[in-house]
């Protein structure tokens, strides 16, 4: 449906604006979540999220629906912006990782939940950056495997395999932590 919406952008500028607006509304938090997981810095995540949407808005007429879904296209732009930001800062995401906020895990859900999520967070930290990105795209941004494949420039089956490996590692890390 989103593909069709963005495809309208080719027909009429006003319709294109509306389609982009819908894409923005449906993807704003997802893009922030993905970028935030890569940069591990709230201020940088906000900056890059805004820059990614700005860049996508400027390029909206160049989007080709035949080359993939609009969300994959948008996340590709966000990914490049985030990686450029990491390059610009000249340091790895790990170096700027902010400490996990225990309060954000929801104290009302109980200590068991909080402890488990802390363990998951710690296990996530131990994953390789590429694996962590896969997890972010899948569970933070909510992309389908074919969309992830498009963003990363790999095949869908390869995406599934890599994702499975990352989840296995994560689970083992969680078990080890427990």
């Amino acid at each position, binding site marked *: 449906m989103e593909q069709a919406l963005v495809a309208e952008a080719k027909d009429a500028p006003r319709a294109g*604006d509306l389609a982009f*607006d819908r894409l*923005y509304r449906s993807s*704003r*938090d997802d893009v*922030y*979540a993905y970028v*935030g*997981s890569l940069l591990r810095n*709230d201020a940088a*995540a*906000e900056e890059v*999220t*805004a820059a990614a*949407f*700005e860049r996508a*808005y*400027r390029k909206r007429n160049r989007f080709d629906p035949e080359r993939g879904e609009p969300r994959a296209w948008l996340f590709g732009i966000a990914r*490049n912006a985030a*990686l*450029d930001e*990491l*390059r610009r800062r000249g340091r*790895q995401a790990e170096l700027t990782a902010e400490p996990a906020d225990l309060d954000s*895990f*929801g104290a009302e859900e109980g200590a068991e939940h909080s402890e*488990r*999520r802390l363990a*998951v*967070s710690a296990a*996530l930290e131990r994953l390789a*950056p*590429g694996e962590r*990105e896969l*997890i972010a795209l899948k*569970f*933070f941004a909510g992309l389908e495997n074919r969309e992830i494949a498009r963003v990363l420039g790999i095949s869908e089956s390869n995406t599934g395999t890599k994702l*499975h490996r990352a*989840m296995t590692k*994560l*689970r083992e890390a*969680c078990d080890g932590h427990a």
Partner: protein
Amino acid sequence: MDTPRDEKLAADLRALRPTPRPEFAAELDERAAAGFPRRSRWPQLAWQMPSPRRMLIPAGGIAVVAIALVTTVVAINEGGGGSSSEVPRSLFQADKSTSAPEAAKPSTQYNGATEEIERSAASAGGASSAGAAAEVEVKPFSQEIRPRLDRRAVERNAELVLGAAPADVADDASKVFEAVHAHDGIVMRSSTREGEPGVAGARFELLIPSAKLSDALAALSAIDEVRSRHEATDDITAPTVQTGELLQDSKARIDSLLAQLEAAESESERETVEEELAAERRHRARLRAQLQNLERRADYSRVLVRIETGASHDSSGGGAWGIDDALGDAGHILAVAAAVALVALAVLGPIALVALLAWLTHRAWVRRERRRVLS
């Protein structure tokens, strides 16, 4: 991820999902509603440097305008109009080979004057060697003569070809006479032919006071369509000055001979002096005629006017401008434009290639760096 454990892990991961601050989300919503106005760390720089894609349009426009401009300049310089004025080194060059032997007169007269000067100098100085002749030839440029060059003698010649309809030839011919008389000129020779286009025409050999040549040519050009116009000048100051000097020398020699004649005591001596005197007087008459001829050449300009009918034979332009001319001009302009574009391409091509290679290299480097960030 089908097992309950995987689903639980997935739920835990989703719970770890970073969420934007409400203030940031509101601010971003506002910017989205405003169409994401450009926000840069360096606003001035962003204003000064548009994106390469946006620069492509004005750059292309400038390139096209530059090519058009150069094409126009080249076409104008190369083409020239039918009424443009040219100054060939030899006057009536085209006419010499056809039917105007008079056209070659200026140069032959000049050569004749030089030969006469050489002969006179040799005989007057009593020296017959080539060195003496060479000395005389150099004389006009020596400092001794230079102060006497108070007025330059310049011979002017012109050729004008007018295009006319056969019915207008007679009318145009009478206008030529009127124009010549209005400028105190002389019609030395004229001929008019009637008939079909290409056959009908007229030819005039005129002498126009040099001081009025420009006005006369303007008046003649206004008679009908100008197909071609050539003007030429020839500086005859040197032969004029030389002839004047020789004339003075001759007069002095005659005076001297007259004095010798008065002082002659014997009949034979008187006869010898009288013979020399007669020869010198003939020589002086020739010099005087020569000087007058030179002065007339400077005072009066030779003008050849031809009235032609039918299509112009001049491929460089002139005549009634028609479809053929338009096609010819268009082809010429296209050829020039293609040549200019080719030159521009030869210059810009390598630059564009280097820029493309630099851009591709930069792009590959950026991609590699992006991959490295997450490795």
